[in-house]
């Protein structure tokens, strides 16, 4: 398995899209952080940019990569290796290179410009989101028969979590505003990894005005520490669950 990860990484580190992604993230980070003297505002803008772009770029790139590697995967599977090892190795390679791109593109500028716990949490959030959406991409890959369909589902998934989910949540809050739904909302947020990432970061930044409804709820009911641990745990769950499902589906998949 290690051997396959090594060679997938070898391939992806020279991949043009990964390189361009890293450079773009770096330019964005430096320019956003340079815009404002207040580093907290800079971090927030960077957070928003990350929450918007990391999921969609990750899920699209990973889905396309997995589909393009089908023939290569077949060749690997004609060798005496377990299906599970091949699939997890490909996941690890893609996730590691995209997470690395984020760590370098956003992490390095932060290290020089705004080093501190908050920056560390932002990088962690970005990396977790990368792992989650690569994991979802893998699930989409094993579940769909052809590439076009897979890419369509990938775009749909990313849009659902970035835009639609929050819209539905707001509609829910408005319709049931008269009832004590606060705890239910916390539960619902756990179903959106992007919201979890936002909450994780905002609890750290402690900017009450910008925390929004969900962040304030987390703070009120769970407190900063418990809230952070809760959202972190949910995000880890979001990485593992699609991965386990993918392995299960892939075992029986016809290639």
């Amino acid at each position: 398995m290690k051997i396959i990860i090594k060679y997938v990484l070898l391939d992806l580190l020279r991949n043009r899209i990964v390189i361009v992604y890293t450079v773009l993230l770096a330019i964005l980070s430096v320019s956003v952080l340079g815009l404002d003297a207040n580093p907290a505002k800079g971090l927030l803008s960077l957070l928003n940019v990350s929450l918007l772009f990391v999921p969609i770029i990750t899920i699209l790139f990973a889905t396309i990569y997995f589909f393009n590697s089908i023939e290569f995967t077949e060749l690997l599977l004609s060798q005496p290796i377990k299906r599970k090892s091949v699939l997890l190795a490909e996941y690890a390679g893609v996730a590691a290179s995209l997470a690395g791109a984020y760590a370098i593109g956003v992490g390095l500028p932060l290290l020089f410009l705004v080093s501190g716990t908050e920056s560390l949490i932002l990088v962690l959030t970005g990396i977790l989101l990368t792992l989650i959406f690569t994991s979802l991409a893998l699930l989409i890959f094993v579940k769909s028969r052809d590439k076009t369909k897979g890419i369509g589902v990938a775009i749909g998934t990313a849009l659902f979590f970035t835009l639609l989910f929050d819209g539905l949540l707001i509609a829910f809050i408005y319709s049931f505003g008269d009832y004590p739904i606060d705890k239910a909302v916390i539960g619902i947020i756990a179903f959106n990894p992007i919201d979890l990432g936002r909450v994780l970061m905002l609890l750290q930044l402690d900017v009450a005005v910008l925390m929004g409804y969900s962040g304030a709820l987390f703070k009120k009911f769970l407190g900063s520490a418990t809230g952070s641990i809760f959202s972190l745990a949910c995000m880890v769950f979001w990485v593992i669950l699609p991965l386990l499902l993918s392995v299960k589906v892939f075992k029986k998949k016809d290639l």
Partner: protein
Amino acid sequence: MIEIKGLTKSFGKFKALDNIDLDLLKGQAISLLGPNGSGKTTLIKSILGLVIPEKGTICINGHVVKNDWSYRSQIGYMPQIGRYPDNMTIEQVINMIKEIRADHKTYDEELISGFGLDKVKNKMMRNLSGGTRQKVSACLAFLFAPDIYILDEPTAGLDPVSSELLKEKITRERSAGKLILITSHVLSDLEGIASHIIYLQDGRLMFYKTVEELQLSTGEEKLNRVVAHVMKTELPSLKSRL
């Protein structure tokens, strides 16, 4: 070597393989023929464990192919379309497979030098032509000198010189007592290689005979004429019987 019993596989309503029984032995070079969509690739992929059959068993050297993946060390597979990671060089692809098969220390690199791949080993896979990629696939299939070769359209896209080289290699391996399973639509390429012919149609086994048998029954010498003759005269009666 390969024993297939009652193999059935369908994709939705479409029956790709319908109750196939086959017994393939050492030293045979079997040509797998049939029109497009007749189940050739599905059969090959079932043997490799890439497609999971609904019914039936496949035994390779006595090992039942199902959850035990170790049997694949005895098979060299050359896929119809070889696609590799864009940014890997030929050398890296070959090294990777060698590292995966760390248990194997001796390599058959005759084709690598024969095709001249050692001279372009630093070329990136994305820059290679279809034919060169096909050569890489062929080299990988022969690298560990396995007992069984499964070659899916091996000569498609190869230039005449390389095609001859590959055919010579296949013939040598066959005389060394290996089992070879080839699909090809270019029947003239199979001339002198194939000892047996399996004909599939609509997922069903139409016949499995030696080339001599077929030459006798049809009175033709050349393989493509033999097969054409069979398709015209024997197949309709076979089909009505099934």
